[in-house]
């Protein structure tokens, strides 16, 4: 299910850098988990059975990716915490996912657009991480990039279908753009942790990724006959633990069992 990294030794870095790397891997893990969780809320309620299967696949891919990151984060930390400790026993302020992925599903157009905006970043990030100096991250990225390549294809096609479909689908997609575009900037705005790791060569340069994303968005929006929004103010904070009101509820559900029955095995 997840990339096998058991035989790879940890990167040889200073304790400070290792701490930063831990935070960053946790950010990747939280991001994949929260989005996987959101998509899994669709399960059984999709617009057509075939798409229920597709969305469950995407959710499973992201969940598997999250687990790989959590396991690696636990190793980097070296305090004996497990993937489940990291996912289930941290409060919202310690979660490091960007605001975009915690936004509620809304209607299908809203879910598709959220997915599309994330897929654009996710795919291009993984392409770069594959070639990075951290062999653990590179191995996880190498496995996940194949999945992400499928996700971006799926969500791009749906953006095109909905944009260039019926009046209603276009209206709904435009509404989603109005709600979600503001969260797009955070993905490629580096936090201090990301800046430190970029300087050390562990995290790719986001400016280059942004260009690739913009080119892809422009292509897809053109086919979808939609204008690319300009001059939108970008919200941020999730990657620093300052979340929207939605994350608390999501975690209350996600962590319910572990909080209600502490310390038990399942």
């Amino acid at each position: 299910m997840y990339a096998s990294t058991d035989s790879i030794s940890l990167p040889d870095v200073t304790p400070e850098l290792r701490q930063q790397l831990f935070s960053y891997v946790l950010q990747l893990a939280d991001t994949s988990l929260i989005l996987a969780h959101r998509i899994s809320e669709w399960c059984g309620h999709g617009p057509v059975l075939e798409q229920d299967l597709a969305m469950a696949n995407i959710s499973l891919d992201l969940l598997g990716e999250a687990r790989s990151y959590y396991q690696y984060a636990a190793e980097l930390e070296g305090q004996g915490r497990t993937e489940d400790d990291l996912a289930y026993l941290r409060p919202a302020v310690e979660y490091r996912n960007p605001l975009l992925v915690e936004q509620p599903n809304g209607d299908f157009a809203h879910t598709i657009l959220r997915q599309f905006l994330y897929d654009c970043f996710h795919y291009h990030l993984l392409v770069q991480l594959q070639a990075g100096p951290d062999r653990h991250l590179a191995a996880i990225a190498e496995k996940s990039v194949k999945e992400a390549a499928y996700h971006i294809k799926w969500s791009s096609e749906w953006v095109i279908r909905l944009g260039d479909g019926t009046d209603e689908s276009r209206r709904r997609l435009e509404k989603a753009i109005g709600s979600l575009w503001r969260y797009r900037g955070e993905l490629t705005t580096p936090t201090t942790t990301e800046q430190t790791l970029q300087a050390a060569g562990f995290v790719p340069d986001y400016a280059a990724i942004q260009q690739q994303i913009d080119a892809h968005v422009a292509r897809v929006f053109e086919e979808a006959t939609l204008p690319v929004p300009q001059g939108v103010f970008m919200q941020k904070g999730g990657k620093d633990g300052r979340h929207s009101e939605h994350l608390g509820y999501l975690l209350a559900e996600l962590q319910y069992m572990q909080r209600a029955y502490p310390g038990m095995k399942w």
Partner: protein
Amino acid sequence: MTQKEWPLWEVFIRSKQGLDHKHVGSLHAADAEMAIQNARDVYTRRLEGVSIWVVESKHVHASNPDDAAAFYEPANDKIYRHPTFYTVPDSIKHM
């Protein structure tokens, strides 16, 4: 509601290189691209395939079972098409 149903597609999967594509079932999709993606999501969740064909069901023409006798039985008595029909001396190898 009188909305039209998404077209039905027949799905064929090659389970590994070197084998034929085999019919595995059908699904609904609005277009061919979606049909291929749906086929991947529906029929290859357990590594069942390396290649997918889809064809809209309405384009499949089938023989009529009533013609079975006329179609297939004439092949029954043409045993000379099978290698075992011929005797070859034991001393002859590689044939």
